[in-house]
């Protein structure tokens, strides 16, 4: 029975939302294939029976619990390779996320398997899974078919979480011996928050800034504009990593996913890693001086120009409009 094995990431006693999406998707596909979806978790004592079994609600028939460090990819590759070697799996599925990419790619190397990343849809075709992946700035979609074992890594938020399962999953402990090289990486500090705690997920109107602001002080005019609009300020990964804005306000692959009524992007080029975190916004306005910026391909209103000139005047005009 060619089953599907899903990696589920967890942190502080909760399963990652994208992992729940991957489990749900695997359960749906397993149903079509007439097989089962199983999930694998790695961690310590925080992996309680209840936490593991709760994946049954999302359709996992069995959960494999492996002891090992959290937040590192290679020990999970060891565990998944062991589970696959023990038999019963034809596919591995991952939700969007940094670790999923690393584990999926490492597992492909270990198993000599085929791997597709940034997958947005998975279908059953002739009794086999096929994966759809947008390529080249989402201008084309390619379909992957696997010659042997198939590894599918979803794009962030690609798989919907569905609590459609029948109840608790069976929990089994998986004994795994870590590879020597997997033990040469040690997590010193995990999940450190940098900068102030900002709430952007509840805001209806978001003004987001990217590298095009030129300097950290560029955020001051965005704060003003957001204040006038009655919204909040968000940021791209590049400027958060540069220390210009708090991590809690970051949109995209390793940040938050938002869908406000208005998303006004200033100086953001709009790479895929950013797009996946905000593409469901109702109205997207982009201001960027580069007419070739990818963000113009998915914005509803694109303004090609210098944000330093436009944003202050826009702020004044909206303030005047609101006052009038």
């Amino acid at each position: 029975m060619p089953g599907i094995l899903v990696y589920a990431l967890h942190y502080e006693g909760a399963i990652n939302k994208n992992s729940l999406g991957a489990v749900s998707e695997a359960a749906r596909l397993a149903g079509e294939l007439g097989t089962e979806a199983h999930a694998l978790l790695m961690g310590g004592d925080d992996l309680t029976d209840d936490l593991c079994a709760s994946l049954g609600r999302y359709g996992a028939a069995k959960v494999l619990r492996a002891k090992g460090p959290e937040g590192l990819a290679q020990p999970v590759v060891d565990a998944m390779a062991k589970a696959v070697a023990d038999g019963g799996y034809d596919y591995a599925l991952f939700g969007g996320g940094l670790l999923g990419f690393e584990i999926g790619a490492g597992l492909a190397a270990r198993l000599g398997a085929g791997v597709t990343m940034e997958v947005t849809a998975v279908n059953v075709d002739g009794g086999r899974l096929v994966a759809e992946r947008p390529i080249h700035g989402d201008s084309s979609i390619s379909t992957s078919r696997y010659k042997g074992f198939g590894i599918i890594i979803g794009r962030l938020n690609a798989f919907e979480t569905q609590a459609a399962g029948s109840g608790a999953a069976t929990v089994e402990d998986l004994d795994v011996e870590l590879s020597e090289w997997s033990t040469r990486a040690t997590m010193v500090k995990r999940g450190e928050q940098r900068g102030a705690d900002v709430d952007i997920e509840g805001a209806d109107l978001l003004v987001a800034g990217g590298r095009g602001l030129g300097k950290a002080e560029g955020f001051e005019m965005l704060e003003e504009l957001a204040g006038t609009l009655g919204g909040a300020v968000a940021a791209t990964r590049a400027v958060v990593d540069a220390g210009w804005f708090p991590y809690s306000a970051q949109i995209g692959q390793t940040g938050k996913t938002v869908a406000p009524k208005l998303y006004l992007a200033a100086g953001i080029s709009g790479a895929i890693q950013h797009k996946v975190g905000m593409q469901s916004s109702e109205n997207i306005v982009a201001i960027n001086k580069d007419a070739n910026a990818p963000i113009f391909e998915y914005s509803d209103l694109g303004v090609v120009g210098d944000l330093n000139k436009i944003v202050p005047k826009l702020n004044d005009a909206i303030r005047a409009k609101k006052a009038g």
Partner: protein
Amino acid sequence: MKICVLVKEVPDAAVEKRIDPSTGRMDRSGERNLNPYDTHAIEAAMQIKEGGAVEVDEIVAVTMGPASAVRALHKAVSLGADRSVHLSDEALAGSDVAATGYALAQTLERESPDLVLLGQQSDDGECYTIGAVLADHLRMPSLTQVIKMDVVEGKLTCERQAEYGYDTVEIRTPAVISVGDAINEPRYPSLKAIMGAKKKPLDALGAGDAGVDTSKVGGEGSQVDCGDFKAPPAKQAGTIIEDEDTNETVDKIVAWLDERKLI
């Protein structure tokens, strides 16, 4: 310490990308350039060399690709690499990310590096998973998207942003590290370095020279068949305003927002 930096030639961002419908592969003609992310990896290697905490014997730029990929190596050398290795073979054409990682790992194995550095993603195929593939073949620990790296003899302390915030990870070398673009500001090559780049040693290897089993690479050896290319669901094109008169531009934005009851 010996550092190998993987580099890649990618289509220039200004040139429109397309798939050749007859082969299903990326049309790699047109303007080519060094993957901008790779310049951060070269800069990281240079900063380790110049930092003085460890002695760097050699920085070697490594690439896989057709004859034109030599230009990416020249660029890498002009930015500070001491020499370069070019893996090129007809048999490699059409390799997927797993096959490419295998071929590069075989090439790197010959160099026995203490540290392999690469850019976090390439601009064309978005294969930012190649570091993890390489690491498994090389049996080395690995971390991607690293934005800060302290190096002492035998140990790296790396920081990166992951799902729940910033992680700090200690790694004993040899290791494979993919760096993010926030790690440094790459330098510009001097005119002298550009002129001298072609004189630095360059090893040209075929698949056989690198010990690559050709049944595991190329379109045939790859474990994924990509096809059925189709256009994504059509999205209505947005309105574009070119800012010539800013007052006029702002009026248009305000009208647009007002129409949608956003202000």
